[in-house]
């Protein structure tokens, strides 16, 4: 059941003196938020008590609070944040009654002695991951009535709601299209500045976490769809190794790239959720049957590490990522992050990933080609809304033309083009070979002794809503630093590390395949060192 929207948002006025004392990791309530508020006339005060994943699970597990109380609090925060003319538009649907029922079941299990790692933790789920209680629409008219069930992560948390894509239809970049749904037709706003984009396509998940509506959210990352909105919204976003997390229930976009990721306010929060969802799955043959290390412990500070917890770690900074096109404020944040890593005992050195400049064109071709194949199933026959016509082929074409959004249509046609006879070898085959070269760059750097890479997550902070609708490739460029890791299938994490032009800036850490524990450990140290 959809909760009714209440009246205008009743957010308390932001108090700068108090906010400055708070940790930035709790959401946009710090001094930066106050600056943004003065500049834009906006407030981004969280509407929840800011409990972390760990604290919520601990409090529910010990009986200090009930899961039902947590769910009620989260739903009140969501409804509050999604009401009024300045709502974020982070959510597209809720499952209030189902969440309350799940919370009651969790309270019963806890009372019976069960130990649940995410007991009572409200988790927002991106609208392209199927669940038992909510419609899965990908923000598209085409799928407005699709209803499929999965239950992977449901054993631990109490589900809270369904976060939105940044725009209509399947994952990809920041988009500006409209979304069907009960909450209106505005795009998801950046909690730090309502005139800016939240990023995409997991922008709803990132905005919900940044605004304090939920402590963590699930997203999906094809070329940067978790890390880019995480950077724009000032939260942590991790894309695990391709194969680390099951994709059963994830609506396929580009299958060789798609991966489920996690967004959280802190590295520790993201690690706790990732640890629950990682591992083999009989329903997904691409989910690797590898042991999952203790990611929760990896993200905890080591009390015996002393002042140099990263001693012996070699961090590479790819020269190709720091070219002239980088926003000076973003470069400054990256420089400070490198300095902080040195102060933590790590060795920071310049490395080279020579094929980086070809990664984005190769990704554009491969992702479009795979999307054109995956989205062929949405034809109004088995999947998707059907438009009546005289013949079956006409009905199929009319259904797809009417149901799929403009950006998706563009990608489908582009993908069909690069796969068509005569152009296949010229574009698609070339892109696949370039992808191999990009992956070899990463493997060569890691094989030469570099443990992690440090890069900017995005070339610039969040840009204005509608700024790049006329030039799709300019919009794609915001993923230029996240796409290479996706092509190589290696894990990467975006961490808020500073601000530029009054907006959050993220730095990206990239690790070798299956090295999520090392990635989270280094990120947790850097997070502690760069926190205000």
């Amino acid at each position, binding site marked *: 059941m959809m909760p009714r929207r209440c009246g205008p948002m009743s957010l308390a006025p932001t108090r700068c003196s108090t906010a400055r004392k708070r940790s930035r990791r709790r959401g946009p309530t710090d001094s930066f938020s106050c600056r943004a508020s003065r500049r834009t006339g906006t407030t981004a005060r969280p509407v929840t008590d800011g409990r972390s994943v760990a604290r919520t699970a601990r409090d529910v597990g010990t009986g200090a609070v009930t899961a039902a109380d947590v769910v009620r609090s989260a739903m009140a925060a969501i409804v509050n944040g999604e009401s009024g003319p300045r709502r974020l538009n982070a959510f597209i649907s809720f499952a209030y009654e189902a969440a309350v029922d799940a919370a009651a079941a969790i309270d019963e299990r806890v009372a019976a002695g069960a130990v649940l790692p995410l007991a009572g933790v409200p988790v927002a789920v991106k609208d392209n991951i199927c669940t038992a209680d909510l419609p899965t629409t990908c923000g598209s008219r085409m799928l407005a009535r699709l209803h499929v069930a999965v239950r992977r992560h449901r054993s631990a948390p109490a589900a809270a709601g369904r976060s939105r894509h940044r725009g209509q239809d399947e994952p990809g970049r920041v988009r500006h299209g409209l979304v069907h749904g009960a909450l209106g037709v505005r795009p998801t706003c950046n909690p730090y500045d309502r005139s800016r984009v939240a990023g995409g396509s997991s922008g709803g998940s990132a905005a919900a976490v940044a605004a304090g509506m939920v402590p963590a959210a699930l997203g999906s990352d094809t070329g940067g769809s978790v890390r880019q909105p995480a950077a724009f919204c000032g939260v942590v976003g991790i894309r695990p190794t391709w194969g680390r997390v099951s994709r059963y229930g994830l609506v396929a976009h580009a299958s060789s790239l798609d991966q489920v990721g996690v967004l959280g306010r802190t590295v520790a929060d993201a690690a706790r959720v990732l640890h629950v969802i990682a591992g083999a799955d009989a329903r997904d043959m691409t989910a690797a049957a590898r042991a999952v290390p203790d990611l929760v412990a990896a993200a905890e500070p080591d009390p015996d590490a002393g002042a140099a917890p990263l001693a012996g770690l070699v961090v590479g900074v790819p020269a190709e990522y720091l070219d002239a096109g980088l926003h000076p404020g973003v470069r400054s944040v990256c420089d400070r992050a490198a300095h902080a890593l040195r102060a933590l005992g790590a060795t920071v050195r310049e490395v080279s990933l020579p094929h980086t400049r070809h990664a984005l064109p190769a990704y554009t071709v491969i992702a479009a080609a795979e999307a054109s194949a995956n989205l062929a199933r949405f034809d109004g026959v088995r999947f998707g809304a059907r438009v009546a016509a005289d013949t079956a082929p006409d009905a199929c074409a009319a259904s797809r033309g009417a149901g799929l959004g403009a950006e998706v249509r563009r990608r489908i046609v*582009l993908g069909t083009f690069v796969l068509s006879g005569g152009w296949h070898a010229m574009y698609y085959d070339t892109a696949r070979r370039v992808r191999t070269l990009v992956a070899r760059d990463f493997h060569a750097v890691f094989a030469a002794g570099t443990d992690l890479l440090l890069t900017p997550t995005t070339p610039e902070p969040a840009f204005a809503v509608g700024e790049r609708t006329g030039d799709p490739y300019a919009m794609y460029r915001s993923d230029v630093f996240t796409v290479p890791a996706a092509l190589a299938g290696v894990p990467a994490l975006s961490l808020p590390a500073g601000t530029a032009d009054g907006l959050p800036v993220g730095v990206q850490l990239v690790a070798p395949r299956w090295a999520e524990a090392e990635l989270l450990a280094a990120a947790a140290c850097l997070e502690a060192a760069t926190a205000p």
Partner: protein
Amino acid sequence: MPHPADFLTAVRLANLQLEPDEVDRLAAGIAGIIAHVEALRATRPGRGATVHRCR
């Protein structure tokens, strides 16, 4: 660079019913993307295999 007619063929193959003006906009947008992708062709990446001539 591909001819705009090639994009029209892709629209037909993609099984999408579109208004004529949208087809034009779509073709223009894709042409812009392809212009950036053209750089890929200059990379001339190898096929990853060594071929030996033998008797």
